[in-house]
Every structure is written in structure tokens, then in C-alpha cells.
């Protein structure tokens, strides 16, 4: 969806919330009343950022964060599984190249399984005003990254360190609604939520979300158990923009899915294990993320799972286009190293190297030439799942953006009973 997010300034309610938090949050931290010092520390940390970054964005003191711009030589990077290029020895060529170019040693850790559980681990640390141990984290929009930004736990980015991003980033991914002006984040990779199916068992290719409700596939349909990948496609199938639908329309869409659930059409609401279910034959048609289906369909010799019958469909009502973003958590020890790396991954050759392995949508369109001419991998370069065309993106919808925590709670109250 190239639709421009409405230029929203900061919600006053949000500001109120941020200022209120300073006092009340302390209660959460009083572990048995013992750690008062800790809570005072936390209050200082929170208040400092809340006023510094939020209400007066124009005067962010970058030199305070990035000092003289000299890297420390270490970068602690928290990422998801299978989300970087890996050679046959298990090392990442792009990370090796980065260390060679800059002298910065990268401690790469795949510690993120899911947005909220990961946040649940780092938020208490940030509340205590301490370093999480990570200089870079990767979080998805539609919940995770917004939470980090809203809580004031993301370090503002000094764009003078990001010339490659300025030059090479896909303009469609710039200035997103969840981070206006890319103040705190830049995209890592994007992907689509659409439909995956087993073409051996389903002869007529599905066309949209409604095929997931087809009684002919009773008990063999997989859907996502989260508050974005299930609701957004359901709303899109009703011809609605997930970001503009009204609470009444949310309920109608929920009823649609609930009925299929009651009729036993839906086998289960899955987390990332949906892909195993599809490969094992537990499901034959399922909601799916584009990169996973691509990996499943590629031969084992090429690093895939060896299920050529697995196919991905862009629903005719439009796929959901989501973005994983890199951010520097507050109190990170090596912010210069982190922002240097952010800039590095926006080099077309580096982005190409990674795209050729990760198989999700790279935020650097010019990486396509590198994949095609240097890596000579036309399968990847020509796949719409990795380098989508403007047409593919024209009908795509974005994850629901929650304007307030209350809106998120209301949304969850409608959807959670559907998938639990």
C-alpha cells in the first residue's frame, strides 16, 4: 500500500500517558519495596527520554548520544532466526565483510522468537534504566516497534550517519505511519501475509481469504494466532482497509472467522509452526508469510525445505505488507557501531547478499541488480516474493496501527477470543 499515512503529530493522550507513567510505573518496580533506588533510577531514565525525545523532537541532542561518531568496535545485535545470510560454515558473509570494513566486531544473537515475549524480557531492564545488552534489535510494526517507541525506549537516529539509507531505501518504506520521519527505526526486511497452499492437493489455486473458509477444506485450514495476521486479512477480504475499519466492522470480520471455527473448518490457529503443519500435511491451505513459503518450496540443495508443491498466493483483495525494523534500544552501549551497521545494510551489494539468503522483501530495490548480475541468482531476483513489483504492492494493506493503547485493547478484545 503506497497510501500515505496521515501526517499525525503526537497524540495528546499519548503524551499524557507518557508523563503519567513516570510515577505509576514505579509501583511495578518495587520488588517487595526493596528496590526503591532502582525505581528512582527508572523514573529518571523514563522521564529523561519522555521529555527529551517526544515533546521537543527538533532539539534532540545527537552529539550526546553519538558523541564524536567514533565506533567502539563492538556491536551486540539481537535478531530472529534465519534472518541473515549464512554460508555453509554457519558464518554470515555480510557480517564478516562489515567487520573487515569497519573493524567492528559483531556479536550476533538470534534471541527474538516473537515481538511481545522479547519485549517482555527487555522492558523491565529498560524501566530500571539499564542497558539491555543489545545495541540493535529487530521488531515488527503493528505492535512491537510501536511499543518500544511509545515507551520512549528507542534511541533517536541521527540521519547524518545514514546516507545509504537516504539514497537506496525503497521510498515506499520511508516515513511509515508507525515511525514518522524514521526518527527511531529503519526497515530490516518486509514481507507479505497471504495464502500458502499445497498445489498437489488443491487443484484450483485459491484467490483470496474466502478460500480459507471453504467447507471443502474442513479441518485442513490453518490461520494465524495473533492480532495482526488474522484480523487484517479478514478485514481486507471484506473490502475494508484494516486501518480504517470501524469497531463494528471488526466484529463482523471476527464473526466471519468464528463461524468457520465453529464449523470445524479451521484446524488450528498457529504461531510460526504453521509452516510445519503445511509441510506435514496437517493443513493443505493456510495463512502464510511470503518468505516461509518460498523457503519451503525451494529444493533442499538450494537451502530450502524441498516442497515444490507449496505455493504462495497474493490474495486478490490485497496481501498484508508488514515490516520488521531495526532500532537502537535506549541506553545501548555502542550506538555509533549500531547506526554504522544500519547504514551498512543499505548498501545494494550487502542488501543483495542478504536478500539472496533471507528471501523476504529487502528495503533496497537496487539490490536486485546485484543479485541478478553478481550473484547470478535469477530465481531470487525475479521472484515477486522478494522483489515485488509496484503492481504487487498497489493493493497491499498495512498492519493495523494503534493510535492509543485503548484502541489496541479494544481490538484485542474482539480478536483474541477468535484465536484462543
Amino acid at each position, binding site marked *: 500500500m503506497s497510501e500515505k499515512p496521515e501526517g499525525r503529530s503526537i497524540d495528546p493522550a499519548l503524551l499524557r500517558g*507518557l508523563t*503519567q507513567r513516570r510515577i*505509576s510505573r514505579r509501583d511495578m518496580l518495587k520488588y517487595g519495596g526493596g528496590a526503591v533506588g532502582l525505581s528512582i533510577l527508572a523514573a529518571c531514565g523514563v522521564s529523561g527520554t519522555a521529555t527529551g525525545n517526544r515533546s521537543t523532537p527538533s532539539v534532540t541532542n545527537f552529539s550526546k548520544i553519538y558523541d564524536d561518531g567514533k565506533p567502539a568496535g563492538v556491536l551486540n545485535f539481537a535478531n530472529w532466526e534465519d534472518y541473515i545470510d549464512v554460508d555453509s560454515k554457519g558464518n554470515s558473509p555480510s557480517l564478516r565483510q562489515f567487520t573487515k570494513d569497519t573493524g567492528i566486531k559483531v556479536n550476533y544473537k538470534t534471541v527474538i522468537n516473537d515481538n*511481545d515475549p522479547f519485549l517482555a524480557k527487555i522492558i523491565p531492564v529498560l524501566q530500571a534504566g539499564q542497558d539491555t545488552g543489545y545495541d540493535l534489535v529487530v521488531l515488527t510494526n503493528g505492535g512491537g516497534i510501536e511499543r518500544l517507541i511509545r515507551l520512549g525506549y528507542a534511541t533517536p537516529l541521527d540521519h547524518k550517519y545514514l546516507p545509504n539509507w537516504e539514497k537506496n531505501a525503497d521510498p515506499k518504506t520511508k516515513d511509515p505511519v508507525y515511525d514518522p520521519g524514521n526518527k527511531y527505526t529503519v526497515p530490516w526486511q518486509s514481507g507479505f501475509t497471504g495464502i500458502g497452499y499445497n498445489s498437489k492437493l488443491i487443484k484450483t489455486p485459491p484467490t483470496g481469504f474466502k478460500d480459507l473458509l471453504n467447507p471443502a477444506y474442513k*479441518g485442513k485450514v490453518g490461520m494465524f494466532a495473533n492480532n495482526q495476521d488474522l484480523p487484517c486479512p479478514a478485514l481486507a477480504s471484506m473490502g475494508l482497509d484494516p486501518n480504517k475499519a470501524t469497531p463494528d466492522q471488526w466484529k463482523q470480520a471476527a464473526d466471519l472467522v468464528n463461524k468457520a471455527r465453529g464449523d470445524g473448518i*479451521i*484446524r488450528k490457529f498457529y504461531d510460526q509452526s504453521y509452516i510445519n503443519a503445511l509441510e*506435514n500435511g*496437517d493443513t493443505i491451505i493456510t495463512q502464510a508469510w511470503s518468505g516461509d513459503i518460498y523457503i519451503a518450496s525451494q529444493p533442499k540443495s538450494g537451502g530450502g525445505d524441498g516442497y515444490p508443491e507449496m505455493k504462495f498466493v497474493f490474495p486478490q483483495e490485497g496481501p498484508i505488507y508488514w515490516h520488521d525494523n531495526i532500532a537502537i534500544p535506549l541506553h545501548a552501549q555502542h550506538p555509533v557501531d549500531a547506526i554504522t551497521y544500519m547504514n551498512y545494510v543499505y548498501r545494494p551489494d550487502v542488501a543483495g547478499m542478504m536478500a539472496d539468503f533471507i528471501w523476504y522483501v529487502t528495503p533496497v530495490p537496487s539490490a536486485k541488480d546485484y543479485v541478478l548480475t553478481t550473484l547470478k541468482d535469477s530465481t531470487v531476483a525475479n521472484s515477486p516474493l522478494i522483489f515485488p513489483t509496484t503492481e504487487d504492492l498497489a493493493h497491499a494493506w498495512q498492519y493495523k496501527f494503534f493510535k492509543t*493503547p485503548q484502541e489496541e485493547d479494544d481490538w484485542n478484545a474482539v480478536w483474541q477470543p477468535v484465536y484462543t
Partner: protein
Amino acid sequence: MERRVAAGVHVGKPRTRLGKRLAPYLLVLPGGLWLLIFFLVPIGFMASVSLQTGNLEEGFRQTWHFHRYIEVFQQYRPEFIRSFVYGSIATGITLAAGYPLAYWIAFHGGRHKTTFLFLLLLPFFVSFVIRTLAWQFILADDGIVLGALKRWHLLPHSFHVLATQTAVISGIAYNFLPFMALPLYVAIERIDRRVVEAASDLYANKRDVFLRVIFPLSIPGVFAGILLTFVPAVGDYVNASILGGTNTTMIGNIIQLEFLQNFHYPAAAALSFILMGILLVGIFIYARVLGARSIEEYV
């Protein structure tokens, strides 16, 4: 040894007496401190959280919102009921499967008893999440078992095990079997063989020997086994999330979701306390009815 004690008495008699009086307290001190720091403090903290109101972004305030307990209980009543039903059935299965097992090892294990016990414990060497995931693969609709049976037309094509209540309950029973079998084994093993012989000498047939001598004497083991199995089984969420489907969500899954996914700390804390409360009351009654009496009889 004796001399040293004597010397000690000689040097500091009053101190030793004080030490003697303090000894039981000193002995209980590490355990007591452990309970205080790692049980009472977090429990108190969670109790306070359960009565707060707010959200992660705006913060939580202590509002003493006791009504939340009623709200969340009503909201998640089906999951509560389901958890107790699954837990009960699974405990019943482990008892039915574990008793003969423990009995056989205790009475007929011979000199290989330790080997059999080791085999019983062997699964513990692999994480139980991994073992449950393995079942997910083994029981897949077109997996090595069901796939083969379907190809030979022994099962209809739509037949499946995963995503059913049966799968979840069996998974729980499978995972908790050793918790039942071990206390049973200990109880049965301790039975004095001469009592069994005496029963036979007094013309009890095999059935009577079991029903009137062995089983009553093993009741403490049954009591402990049920306790050790039922409590974790009711709170389990791994089996439901790996082996379950759309209608097998247990209360553990809800607590996990509320805590880690929604950041509804108060609701999650309240749910945990409700679960704990029901379990404690249940166990109290159970202990009064079965436990205490049977243990008295045993002694």
C-alpha cells in the same frame, strides 16, 4: 570425637545450650529464607499486581480492583473448566497406566529394578517440549504413522489425531506418567512381603490380596502421585499449544497470552491466583478426605 565434645562442653557450656535451642531454627533457616525470598516475596508482589489497573504504556496503578477476579474468572470460565477436566482425565490415565507399571517393577523387577526405574526416568533426559514436538511430527496427518495407515486404507483420509482433545489429554498423561509411577513404586516397594504372605496363608485369593492388602497399603503413593500429577497437569500449556486445536485452549495458555503477549499483567496475575486458589482448596479437601486418613492407617 567424644573428647572433643567434652572439651566443648567444658569451655562454653551456656553457649552450647543456646546453640541446642537454636539448632532447629538454624536448620530451617536456609529453607525458610529460600521460601521467603523466592516464594513469599514474588507471590506478594504478584498479589499486588493483580489489583492494579492500567497498561504497559501508561503505567499500572494500585487501585485495589478486586472485581477483576470475578471479571477474569467469568471471561475464562470455559478454559478453567477445560483445564480441570483435562487434568482429571490425564491423572486418571496416568494412575491406570502407572499402577501396574510400578507394581510390576516393585514385585517382579528382581535384580533389574534399578534398570527399570532408570528407563522410566530416561525421557526426563530430553526436554519435554522437544518430546511433545516429536509427537507432533509422529502423529502428523500424513506423517509416518497416520500417513502409512491411510495409504493402506486402514483409516479414512479425514482421520486425524492432532488438534483434538484426545491428543492434548494423551500428551499430558504421557508427559506426567513418571510423576505418578515413581511415588507409586516407592509405596508399593515398601510393603512388607510378609504381610502379603500372611494374607495368602489366611486363604485370601490373589484378588483379595491385592484389593484388601496391597492396594490399601499403597494409598500414600496414590495420594502423592495424584498430587504430583494433577497440579502441574491443570496448569500445563505446552501440550495444548503443541498438540491442540481450536477448542483445546487451557487456562495456562490464557495466562501465558495475557502475560507475554498482551502485557495484561493484572489479569494474568489474577488468573494465576484463581487457579492457585482452586487447586489449594481442592487439595485441602482431598487431603482431608483421602490423604490424612490413609496415612494414619498406613502408620
